[in-house]
């Protein structure tokens, strides 16, 4: 009987220990080979399948030198990435949008790849478009390799322009923002296909950077310290947005969501022009419509800003490397190989001399090629700094949305206020 009890005790304790070990085994980093790298992506569905095919190809070409494993995080991407970093279980490579690079670099989560990038025989900074590669820079160092660029161009409805007798912009037009507003005025309030139409649609998109640049200004200077919102040029740029709202050149802010997303206003022929990324696939959507709903799409570059550049906000994502891999040559070779493979995947490749890839990726984009080639030279991102998320919050809620809701809103006063707030934030930077 005594022996039986001991056996039970041992069995019970073993069970408890097994469960405890089981619980803990889920925590921390799992062991893996030094030449195996994890790549976290927000891709899901078909995009993930395409991504996996690219990784398989890169792995096959590596001939066993390294192996990349895919980790798909389709929702709450940055929450999960930051949690993984906190748990010391950071993926080796992961995608990162340009706005966050400075923040993660400052937090010490990313590898500084400057030396390897500048000394590479394969992919060097000068191969990238200047405005695009700047998005992966912070504090004079490179923190990632951009793999996609998606600058804005102006899509317009050629049929609507023709029917309402408005002169169309050219594919490489050097039109100004004033001229763009005049074109909007020619449409707004007119009837087309039984609907009242507008010149364009603005509901927080295009982003605030676009308007601030329009006046020749900027939000943050290249030094990453000076805030420029109080400058006359920045405020003049916001004045263009103010005109759009005040003169009803766009549907009301509260009205835009009624059709779904803002691009639907263009697809349903309710606005003449739309600021869209090069990647926006209106061509395929229009081709899939019934014959009577189809329309011909025209392309124009972004209007010329007051400083003479046709600056186009470019959403760029980079592949970044975990801090723990800083200086790791094998990891960098893998990063370089996979980045090059991405250039044949998405519109638009961020490197010079690769525009032909666009028509191969999507033949329907052929009509946009002149505008795309012109725009790539002006593609750029803002000078994002670690405090950007706080500054952007104020710019969005306290400035942009307030102006969209109230045409009489004192946007200049608010910009001066945000200037002060941002300066205080930057002054506290560690």
């Amino acid at each position: 009987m005594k022996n039986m009890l001991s056996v039970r005790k041992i069995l019970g304790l073993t069970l408890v220990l097994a469960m405890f070990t089981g619980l803990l085994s889920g925590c921390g980093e799992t062991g893996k080979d030094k030449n195996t790298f994890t790549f976290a992506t927000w891709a899901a569905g078909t995009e993930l399948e395409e991504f996996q095919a690219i990784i398989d190809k890169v792995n096959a070409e590596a001939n066993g030198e390294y192996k990349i494993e895919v980790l798909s995080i389709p929702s709450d991407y940055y929450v999960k990435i930051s949690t993984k970093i906190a748990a010391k279980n950071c993926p080796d490579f992961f995608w990162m949008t340009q706005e966050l690079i400075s923040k993660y670099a400052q937090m010490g989560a990313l590898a500084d790849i400057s030396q390897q990038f500048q000394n590479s025989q394969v992919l060097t900074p000068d191969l990238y478009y200047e405005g695009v590669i700047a998005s992966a820079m912070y504090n004079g160092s490179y923190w990632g390799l951009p793999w996609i660029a998606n600058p804005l161009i102006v899509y317009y409805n050629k049929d609507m322009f023709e029917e309402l007798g408005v002169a169309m912009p050219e594919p490489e037009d050097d039109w100004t923002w004033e001229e763009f507003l005049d074109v909007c005025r020619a449409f707004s309030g007119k009837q087309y296909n039984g609907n009242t139409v507008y010149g364009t649609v603005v509901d927080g998109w295009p982003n605030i950077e676009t308007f601030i640049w329009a006046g020749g200004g900027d939000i943050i200077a290249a030094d990453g310290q000076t805030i420029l919102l109080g400058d006359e040029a920045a405020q003049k740029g916001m004045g263009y947005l103010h005109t759009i709202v005040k003169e009803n050149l766009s549907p009301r802010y509260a009205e835009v969501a009624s059709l779904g997303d803002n691009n639907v206003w263009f697809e349903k022929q309710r606005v003449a022009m739309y600021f869209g990324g090069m990647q926006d696939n209106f061509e395929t959507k229009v081709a899939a419509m019934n014959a009577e709903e189809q329309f011909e799409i025209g392309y124009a570059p972004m209007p010329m800003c007051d400083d003479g550049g046709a600056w186009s906000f470019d959403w760029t994502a980079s592949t970044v490397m975990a801090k723990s891999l800083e200086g790791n040559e094998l990891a960098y070779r893998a990063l370089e190989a996979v980045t090059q493979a991405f250039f044949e995947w998405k519109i638009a490749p961020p490197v010079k001399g690769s525009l032909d890839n666009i028509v191969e990726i999507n033949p329907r984009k052929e009509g946009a090629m002149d505008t795309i080639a012109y725009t790539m030279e002006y593609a750029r991102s803002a000078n994002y700094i670690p405090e950007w998320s706080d500054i952007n919050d104020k710019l969005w809620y306290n400035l942009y949305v307030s102006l969209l809701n109230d045409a009489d809103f004192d946007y200049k006063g608010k910009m001066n206020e945000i200037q002060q707030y941002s300066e205080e934030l930057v002054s506290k930077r560690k």
Partner: protein
Amino acid sequence: MSQKRQRAGFYFILPWLIGLCLFTALPMVAAVYISMTDWDIVGNAEFVGLGNYITLFQEEEFIRSLWVTVRYAVIAVPLIIATSLTIAVLVSKNHKGTGVFRVIYYMPAIVSGVAVAIVFKWILDPSYGLLNGILAFFRIQGPDWLYDPDWVLPSYLIMAVWGAGGGLLTYLAALKDIPEDLYGAAMIDGANTLQKVRYITVPLMTPIIFYNLVLGIIGAFRKFTDAYVLGGAGKEGNFYMVYLYEEAFGHYRMGYATALAWVLFVIILLLTFVVNWTKKYWVYSE
């Protein structure tokens, strides 16, 4: 109970006890420490003492989000209780078809918060939404709801009332516990329906109203899902929990966000104490 049996019982609860220590007690202790640091999730945490707690009371956004939440809680909690109780009284009788109504009213409780938010995005759409469509039928110009700062709170209250059936089960169970002979006696005394509700149903329901009041306050202060999905013009949809989440995962101020979480915990705790203290004045006990 013999010592051996006690020990065996302890072994059985040991996995749960380990889980409680590891996943509840330990994180809570860690959270106290984190709230006193400037931890940004990745780098090293620097001890700042009560710095985060001092900062948050100076932050305009903290005061604003707390005000949005308190205002919502003050109106929504009694509104939900009143609606839920009324529905429960109406569907408590076993008439033909009441079962269907019980299911319909309880249904919001089993629908995901995100799905509810998406449906309400359409219902409250200023141009093509269901609500403004109905108002237009009566020649009333509907408001911009979530796009107009003045109408954001009413929008969330409408959603709260729609989901009020969630408390139905507890109210129905409590209604069933009220002895029928009390109503019989009241009927003999000549009480009408309203008097029966006023002097029998409501007083005997106060324990369950108390329970739902406490849970309602906690729920209102922890409002997140629909507010996170829908937002609201002029930051009127920026409830406390949304603000906390944004600070933690949008701005990576984990130390500050943890301090916010502790402040919320203290607020809820104090309110629960206050409600509990009032219990002796209005909650029926045998």
